Protein backbone atom coordinates (compact mmCIF):
# COMPACT_ATOMS: atom_id res chain seq x y z
CA UNK A 1 0.00 0.00 0.00
CA UNK A 2 1.20 3.48 -0.87
CA UNK A 3 0.71 5.91 1.96
CA UNK A 4 1.26 9.53 2.88
CA UNK A 5 1.74 11.19 6.26
CA UNK A 6 0.17 14.53 7.15
CA UNK A 7 1.25 16.14 10.40
CA UNK A 8 2.46 19.63 11.22
CA UNK A 9 5.02 18.24 13.69
CA UNK A 10 8.24 16.90 12.21
CA UNK A 11 8.81 14.49 15.10
CA UNK A 12 5.36 12.95 14.55
CA UNK A 13 6.12 12.49 10.83
CA UNK A 14 9.50 10.96 11.62
CA UNK A 15 7.94 8.52 14.10
CA UNK A 16 5.24 7.49 11.62
CA UNK A 17 7.83 7.06 8.87
CA UNK A 18 9.87 4.83 11.20
CA UNK A 19 6.78 2.75 12.00
CA UNK A 20 5.85 2.49 8.29
CA UNK A 21 9.37 1.41 7.34
CA UNK A 22 8.94 -1.53 9.66
CA UNK A 23 5.97 -2.85 7.66
CA UNK A 24 7.00 -4.46 4.35
CA UNK A 25 3.67 -3.82 2.62
CA UNK A 26 3.77 -0.06 3.29
CA UNK A 27 5.56 2.49 1.14
CA UNK A 28 5.63 6.10 2.27
CA UNK A 29 5.35 8.18 -0.90
CA UNK A 30 4.96 11.58 0.72
CA UNK A 31 5.15 13.53 3.98
CA UNK A 32 3.33 16.83 4.40
CA UNK A 33 3.37 19.42 7.19
CA UNK A 34 -0.09 20.71 6.28
CA UNK A 35 -3.30 19.67 4.56
CA UNK A 36 -2.99 22.10 1.65
CA UNK A 37 0.26 20.56 0.41
CA UNK A 38 -1.29 17.11 0.71
CA UNK A 39 -4.38 18.15 -1.30
CA UNK A 40 -2.10 19.46 -4.04
CA UNK A 41 -0.28 16.12 -4.10
CA UNK A 42 -3.50 14.09 -4.08
CA UNK A 43 -4.83 16.05 -7.05
CA UNK A 44 -2.12 14.45 -9.13
CA UNK A 45 -1.43 11.17 -7.35
CA UNK A 46 -3.40 8.28 -5.93
CA UNK A 47 -2.62 6.74 -2.56
CA UNK A 48 -4.07 3.78 -0.67
CA UNK A 49 -3.70 5.10 2.85
CA UNK A 50 -3.29 8.40 4.69
CA UNK A 51 -1.97 8.87 8.21
CA UNK A 52 -3.62 12.09 9.21
CA UNK A 53 -3.14 14.32 12.24
CA UNK A 54 -6.44 15.87 13.34
CA UNK A 55 -5.11 18.80 15.30
CA UNK A 56 -3.40 21.09 12.83
CA UNK A 57 -3.56 24.88 12.76
CA UNK A 58 -5.85 26.54 10.18
CA UNK A 59 -7.08 23.38 8.47
CA UNK A 60 -7.96 20.44 10.70
CA UNK A 61 -7.80 16.78 9.74
CA UNK A 62 -11.60 16.64 9.49
CA UNK A 63 -11.64 19.71 7.21
CA UNK A 64 -9.16 17.85 5.04
CA UNK A 65 -11.25 14.66 4.89
CA UNK A 66 -14.28 16.71 3.75
CA UNK A 67 -12.33 17.98 0.73
CA UNK A 68 -11.67 14.45 -0.60
CA UNK A 69 -14.09 13.24 -3.29
CA UNK A 70 -12.92 9.62 -3.29
CA UNK A 71 -11.01 9.30 -0.05
CA UNK A 72 -8.59 6.42 0.43
CA UNK A 73 -8.38 4.63 3.78
CA UNK A 74 -7.48 7.07 6.52
CA UNK A 75 -5.89 6.42 9.90
CA UNK A 76 -6.20 9.37 12.26
CA UNK A 77 -3.35 10.23 14.58
CA UNK A 78 -3.93 12.48 17.55
CA UNK A 79 -3.04 13.24 21.14
CA UNK A 80 -6.70 13.57 22.12
CA UNK A 81 -9.33 10.87 22.37
CA UNK A 82 -12.10 13.48 22.21
CA UNK A 83 -12.34 13.34 18.42
CA UNK A 84 -13.08 9.60 18.27
CA UNK A 85 -16.86 10.01 18.07
CA UNK A 86 -16.63 12.44 15.16
CA UNK A 87 -14.26 10.05 13.40
CA UNK A 88 -16.97 7.38 13.30
CA UNK A 89 -18.99 9.60 10.96
CA UNK A 90 -16.56 8.96 8.12
CA UNK A 91 -16.58 5.63 6.34
CA UNK A 92 -13.03 6.15 5.07
CA UNK A 93 -11.58 6.51 8.59
CA UNK A 94 -10.49 3.01 9.51
CA UNK A 95 -8.68 3.63 12.77
CA UNK A 96 -7.73 6.18 15.37
CA UNK A 97 -4.24 6.16 16.86
CA UNK A 98 -3.42 7.96 20.07
CA UNK A 99 0.05 9.51 20.33
CA UNK A 100 2.59 8.39 21.31
CA UNK A 101 1.87 5.51 18.94
CA UNK A 102 3.01 2.07 20.05
CA UNK A 103 4.44 -0.19 17.33
CA UNK A 104 1.99 -3.05 17.94
CA UNK A 105 -1.02 -0.73 17.89
CA UNK A 106 0.29 0.78 14.65
CA UNK A 107 0.43 -2.67 13.02
CA UNK A 108 -3.19 -3.30 14.05
CA UNK A 109 -4.20 -0.08 12.29
CA UNK A 110 -2.39 -1.15 9.13
CA UNK A 111 -4.17 -4.52 9.22
CA UNK A 112 -7.51 -2.69 9.52
CA UNK A 113 -6.59 -0.50 6.57
CA UNK A 114 -5.74 -3.58 4.48
CA UNK A 115 -9.12 -5.15 5.31
CA UNK A 116 -10.84 -1.90 4.40
CA UNK A 117 -9.01 -1.91 1.06
CA UNK A 118 -10.11 -5.48 0.33
CA UNK A 119 -13.75 -4.74 1.17
CA UNK A 120 -13.71 -1.58 -0.96
CA UNK A 121 -12.16 -3.44 -3.89
CA UNK A 122 -14.75 -6.22 -3.62
CA UNK A 123 -17.63 -3.71 -3.51
CA UNK A 124 -16.24 -1.93 -6.57
CA UNK A 125 -15.98 -5.26 -8.38
CA UNK A 126 -19.59 -6.13 -7.53
CA UNK A 127 -20.77 -2.73 -8.69
CA UNK A 128 -18.89 -3.15 -11.94
CA UNK A 129 -20.49 -6.57 -12.48
CA UNK A 130 -23.90 -5.01 -11.86
CA UNK A 131 -23.21 -2.33 -14.44
CA UNK A 132 -22.34 -4.91 -17.06
CA UNK A 133 -25.43 -7.11 -16.64
CA UNK A 134 -26.44 -6.93 -20.23
CA UNK A 135 -28.99 -9.68 -20.52
CA UNK A 136 -31.60 -11.79 -18.73
CA UNK A 137 -33.45 -15.04 -19.41
CA UNK A 138 -37.13 -15.63 -20.08
CA UNK A 139 -38.98 -18.92 -19.76
CA UNK A 140 -41.01 -19.91 -22.81
CA UNK A 141 -42.39 -23.44 -23.08
CA UNK A 142 -39.77 -24.66 -20.57
CA UNK A 143 -36.99 -23.18 -22.64
CA UNK A 144 -34.80 -20.47 -21.19
CA UNK A 145 -34.12 -17.86 -23.83
CA UNK A 146 -31.48 -15.20 -23.42
CA UNK A 147 -32.65 -11.65 -24.13
CA UNK A 148 -30.07 -9.03 -24.95
CA UNK A 149 -31.24 -5.94 -23.05
CA UNK A 150 -30.04 -3.20 -25.44
CA UNK A 151 -31.84 -4.97 -28.32
CA UNK A 152 -35.24 -4.53 -26.62
CA UNK A 153 -37.10 -1.55 -28.02
CA UNK A 154 -40.52 -2.05 -26.53
CA UNK A 155 -42.24 -3.93 -23.71
CA UNK A 156 -46.00 -4.01 -23.71
CA UNK A 157 -48.29 -5.31 -20.97
CA UNK A 158 -51.35 -7.28 -22.01
CA UNK A 159 -53.35 -8.83 -19.22
CA UNK A 160 -51.23 -11.44 -17.44
CA UNK A 161 -48.61 -11.36 -20.22
CA UNK A 162 -45.98 -9.03 -21.53
CA UNK A 163 -44.76 -8.70 -25.12
CA UNK A 164 -41.05 -8.11 -25.39
CA UNK A 165 -40.07 -6.70 -28.76
CA UNK A 166 -36.42 -6.87 -29.77
CA UNK A 167 -34.51 -6.04 -32.95
CA UNK A 168 -34.66 -9.70 -34.05
CA UNK A 169 -37.70 -11.25 -32.51
CA UNK A 170 -40.76 -10.75 -30.36
CA UNK A 171 -41.56 -12.80 -27.27
CA UNK A 172 -44.68 -13.24 -25.14
CA UNK A 173 -44.01 -14.09 -21.52
CA UNK A 174 -46.22 -14.69 -18.51
CA UNK A 175 -45.04 -11.83 -16.32
CA UNK A 176 -45.75 -8.25 -15.32
CA UNK A 177 -44.41 -4.92 -16.49
CA UNK A 178 -43.25 -4.19 -12.95
CA UNK A 179 -41.08 -7.33 -12.86
CA UNK A 180 -39.35 -6.61 -16.15
CA UNK A 181 -38.95 -2.93 -15.26
CA UNK A 182 -36.71 -4.02 -12.38
CA UNK A 183 -34.44 -5.85 -14.84
CA UNK A 184 -34.08 -2.96 -17.25
CA UNK A 185 -31.49 -0.20 -16.69
CA UNK A 186 -33.09 3.13 -15.86
CA UNK A 187 -30.52 4.90 -17.98
CA UNK A 188 -31.90 3.23 -21.14
CA UNK A 189 -35.57 2.51 -20.50
CA UNK A 190 -38.59 4.55 -19.47
CA UNK A 191 -42.14 3.60 -18.64
CA UNK A 192 -44.12 6.09 -20.70
CA UNK A 193 -47.55 4.59 -20.12
CA UNK A 194 -49.02 2.11 -17.63
CA UNK A 195 -48.80 -0.54 -20.38
CA UNK A 196 -45.54 0.42 -22.13
CA UNK A 197 -41.82 0.61 -21.44
CA UNK A 198 -39.65 1.89 -24.26
CA UNK A 199 -35.97 1.96 -25.06
CA UNK A 200 -35.16 5.67 -25.29
CA UNK A 201 -32.38 5.04 -27.82
CA UNK A 202 -34.85 3.51 -30.29
CA UNK A 203 -37.28 6.44 -30.53
CA UNK A 204 -37.76 7.68 -34.08
CA UNK A 205 -40.03 10.61 -33.37
CA UNK A 206 -42.40 12.10 -30.83
CA UNK A 207 -45.61 13.79 -31.73
CA UNK A 208 -48.02 15.29 -29.22
CA UNK A 209 -48.90 12.36 -26.98
CA UNK A 210 -47.33 9.50 -28.87
CA UNK A 211 -43.93 8.07 -29.69
CA UNK A 212 -42.93 6.31 -32.88
CA UNK A 213 -40.58 3.48 -32.08
CA UNK A 214 -39.75 1.13 -34.96
CA UNK A 215 -43.14 0.74 -36.59
CA UNK A 216 -45.13 1.02 -33.37
CA UNK A 217 -46.93 4.16 -32.34
CA UNK A 218 -47.04 4.17 -28.54
CA UNK A 219 -49.18 6.48 -26.39
CA UNK A 220 -47.46 8.64 -23.78
CA UNK A 221 -49.29 9.32 -20.53
CA UNK A 222 -49.71 12.99 -19.73
CA UNK A 223 -47.96 12.43 -16.40
CA UNK A 224 -44.97 10.70 -18.08
CA UNK A 225 -44.43 13.29 -20.82
CA UNK A 226 -42.31 15.74 -18.73
CA UNK A 227 -39.97 12.89 -17.68
CA UNK A 228 -39.71 11.74 -21.31
CA UNK A 229 -38.86 15.24 -22.51
CA UNK A 230 -36.27 15.61 -19.76
CA UNK A 231 -34.57 12.39 -20.80
CA UNK A 232 -34.25 13.34 -24.48
CA UNK A 233 -31.12 14.95 -25.75
CA UNK A 234 -32.72 18.02 -27.35
CA UNK A 235 -30.72 20.29 -29.63
Amino acid sequence: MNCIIIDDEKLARTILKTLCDDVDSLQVVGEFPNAMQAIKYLNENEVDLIFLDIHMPDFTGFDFVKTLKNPPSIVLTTSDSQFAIEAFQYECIVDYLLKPIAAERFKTAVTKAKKHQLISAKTEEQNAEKTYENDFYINIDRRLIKIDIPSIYLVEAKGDYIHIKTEDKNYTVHSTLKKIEEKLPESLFLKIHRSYIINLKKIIDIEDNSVLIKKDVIPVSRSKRPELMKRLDLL
Partner: protein
Amino acid sequence: MEQPNLTYVDQLARGDEKIRQTLIDVIKTEFPEEEKEYYTVLAKKDYKKIEESVHKIKHKISILGLEKSYELANTYEHNLREHRMEGETDFEEILNTISAYLKTI
Protein backbone atom coordinates in the same frame (compact mmCIF):
# COMPACT_ATOMS: atom_id res chain seq x y z
CA MET B 1 9.62 16.37 39.48
CA GLU B 2 9.67 13.38 37.13
CA GLN B 3 12.58 13.24 34.73
CA PRO B 4 12.47 12.84 30.93
CA ASN B 5 13.64 9.56 29.43
CA LEU B 6 14.19 7.93 26.05
CA THR B 7 12.26 4.71 26.71
CA TYR B 8 9.78 5.32 23.87
CA VAL B 9 12.54 6.37 21.46
CA ASP B 10 14.48 3.21 22.29
CA GLN B 11 11.38 1.04 21.81
CA LEU B 12 10.86 2.60 18.41
CA ALA B 13 14.50 2.33 17.34
CA ARG B 14 14.71 -1.35 18.43
CA GLY B 15 18.47 -1.19 18.70
CA ASP B 16 19.00 0.71 15.45
CA GLU B 17 21.36 3.49 16.48
CA LYS B 18 20.73 5.46 13.28
CA ILE B 19 16.98 5.61 13.89
CA ARG B 20 17.55 6.47 17.55
CA GLN B 21 19.86 9.35 16.65
CA THR B 22 17.48 10.64 13.95
CA LEU B 23 14.64 10.80 16.45
CA ILE B 24 16.82 12.51 19.08
CA ASP B 25 18.07 15.01 16.51
CA VAL B 26 14.50 15.90 15.49
CA ILE B 27 13.50 16.40 19.13
CA LYS B 28 16.59 18.52 19.80
CA THR B 29 15.94 20.67 16.74
CA GLU B 30 12.17 20.98 16.96
CA PHE B 31 11.68 21.43 20.70
CA PRO B 32 13.63 24.75 21.05
CA GLU B 33 11.72 26.12 18.04
CA GLU B 34 8.40 25.17 19.60
CA GLU B 35 9.45 26.54 22.97
CA LYS B 36 10.41 29.85 21.34
CA GLU B 37 7.08 29.92 19.47
CA TYR B 38 5.24 29.31 22.76
CA TYR B 39 6.82 32.32 24.47
CA THR B 40 6.20 34.49 21.38
CA VAL B 41 2.46 33.75 21.28
CA LEU B 42 2.29 33.93 25.08
CA ALA B 43 3.61 37.50 24.96
CA LYS B 44 0.85 38.35 22.46
CA LYS B 45 -1.78 36.76 24.74
CA ASP B 46 -3.23 34.98 21.73
CA TYR B 47 -5.10 32.16 23.51
CA LYS B 48 -5.79 30.17 20.36
CA LYS B 49 -2.13 30.22 19.31
CA ILE B 50 -0.92 29.45 22.85
CA GLU B 51 -3.29 26.46 22.92
CA GLU B 52 -1.98 25.24 19.56
CA SER B 53 1.58 25.66 20.75
CA VAL B 54 0.94 23.74 23.99
CA HIS B 55 -0.79 21.00 22.01
CA LYS B 56 2.24 20.57 19.78
CA ILE B 57 4.69 20.48 22.69
CA LYS B 58 2.41 18.04 24.54
CA HIS B 59 3.38 15.31 22.08
CA LYS B 60 7.06 15.72 22.92
CA ILE B 61 6.25 15.61 26.62
CA SER B 62 4.65 12.20 26.10
CA ILE B 63 7.48 11.00 23.84
CA LEU B 64 9.91 11.81 26.64
CA GLY B 65 7.91 9.67 29.05
CA LEU B 66 6.67 12.54 31.24
CA GLU B 67 3.27 11.13 32.11
CA LYS B 68 2.33 13.50 34.97
CA SER B 69 3.65 16.49 33.06
CA TYR B 70 1.55 15.41 30.10
CA GLU B 71 -1.58 15.59 32.27
CA LEU B 72 -0.58 19.06 33.51
CA ALA B 73 -0.04 20.23 29.93
CA ASN B 74 -3.38 18.74 28.96
CA THR B 75 -5.15 20.66 31.74
CA TYR B 76 -3.37 23.86 30.73
CA GLU B 77 -4.42 23.35 27.12
CA HIS B 78 -8.06 22.92 28.16
CA ASN B 79 -7.90 25.99 30.39
CA LEU B 80 -6.53 28.03 27.49
CA ARG B 81 -9.53 26.96 25.43
CA GLU B 82 -11.62 28.79 28.03
CA HIS B 83 -9.19 31.73 28.02
CA ARG B 84 -7.81 30.83 31.45
CA MET B 85 -4.09 30.74 32.22
CA GLU B 86 -4.09 28.27 35.14
CA GLY B 87 -1.28 25.83 34.58
CA GLU B 88 1.12 28.29 32.99
CA THR B 89 3.75 28.02 35.75
CA ASP B 90 3.64 24.21 35.77
CA PHE B 91 3.93 24.12 31.98
CA GLU B 92 6.91 26.44 31.93
CA GLU B 93 8.61 24.33 34.55
CA ILE B 94 8.12 21.32 32.26
CA LEU B 95 9.69 23.26 29.39
CA ASN B 96 12.70 24.07 31.55
CA THR B 97 13.10 20.44 32.60
CA ILE B 98 13.01 19.26 28.98
CA SER B 99 15.43 21.97 27.83
CA ALA B 100 17.90 20.97 30.52
CA TYR B 101 17.52 17.27 29.66
CA LEU B 102 18.03 17.81 25.91
CA LYS B 103 21.42 19.37 26.65
CA THR B 104 22.49 16.10 28.24
CA ILE B 105 21.66 13.78 25.33
